[in-house]
C-alpha cells in the first residue's frame, strides 16, 4: 500500500564506506526526487529525475550519484561517506515535474549516521 518507500530506514556506517539508499514509488509518477534534511531541519532538494532523466542536480558533491533504473525507482549511492553526510534523506515523487504546484509525495526518510 505504501506509495513511496525507502530502504533502509536507518543506516549507520563508518567514514569512507560506500552505501546506497533505495527508493520506490507505486504511484505511476514520472518524476522522483531526493531531499536532504540536515541537523538544522533544513529540507533541501538534491536531485530530480523525470522519466529516468536527470533534470535537477543541486550542487551536490560528486560522491552522491543517483541512479534511476526505471521510472518507479530512484536510488541514491554515496561514495566515501563523510561525517557531514549524516542526515535524514527523503525520497519523493510527483506526477509531472512541469505541472505547476504538482503535489510531491514523500517517503518515510532514511536516517544516515556516519561515524
Amino acid at each position: 500500500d505504501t506509495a513511496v518507500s525507502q530502504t533502509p530506514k536507518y543506516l549507520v556506517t563508518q567514514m569512507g564506506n560506500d552505501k546506497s539508499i533505495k527508493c520506490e514509488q507505486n504511484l505511476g509518477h514520472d518524476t522522483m526526487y531526493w531531499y536532504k534534511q540536515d541537523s538544522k531541519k533544513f529540507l533541501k532538494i538534491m536531485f530530480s529525475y523525470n522519466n529516468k532523466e536527470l533534470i535537477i542536480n543541486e550542487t551536490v558533491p560528486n560522491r552522491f550519484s543517483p541512479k534511476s533504473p526505471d521510472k518507479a525507482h530512484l536510488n541514491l549511492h554515496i561514495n566515501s561517506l563523510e561525517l557531514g553526510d549524516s542526515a535524514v534523506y527523503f525520497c519523493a515523487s510527483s506526477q509531472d515535474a512541469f505541472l505547476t504546484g504538482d503535489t510531491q509525495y514523500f517517503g518515510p526518510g532514511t536516517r544516515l549516521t556516519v561515524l
Partner: protein
Amino acid sequence: DQQVKQNSPSLSVQEGRISILNCDYTNSMFDYFLWYKKYPAEGPTFLISISSIKDKNEDGRFTVFLNKSAKHLSLHIVPSQPGDSAVYFCAASETYNTDKLIFGTGTRLQVFP
C-alpha cells in the same frame, strides 16, 4: 541563503483554539506556495497550497493566507485538534521551476487538551 523562513521553531496551542503558523520568503519569483505536515518518522505530506494569483485558500479547517507585498504567508488551523500536532513545513516554487521546492525549516505545533 535561506529563501523561505519559518522563524518560530515551535508553537503550543490549546485544543479548539486557532493555530497560526507563519512563513516569510525573500525570492520575489516565487509564485506557488505549499504547506506540508510531518509526523515523526514519516515523510512530509501535502496539506494545502496557494497560487500567487490568490490571497486566500481554504480547505476545511485549514486556511492559507498570502500577502505578496509583505512576502508572507500563514497557515491557520481552526479549530486545532491534538492530531494536528506535527511539524509544518512551508515550501515555495517559481513558475518555471515548479518541481524545485524550497522548504522552510519547519514549525513544531503542539496542540494540548
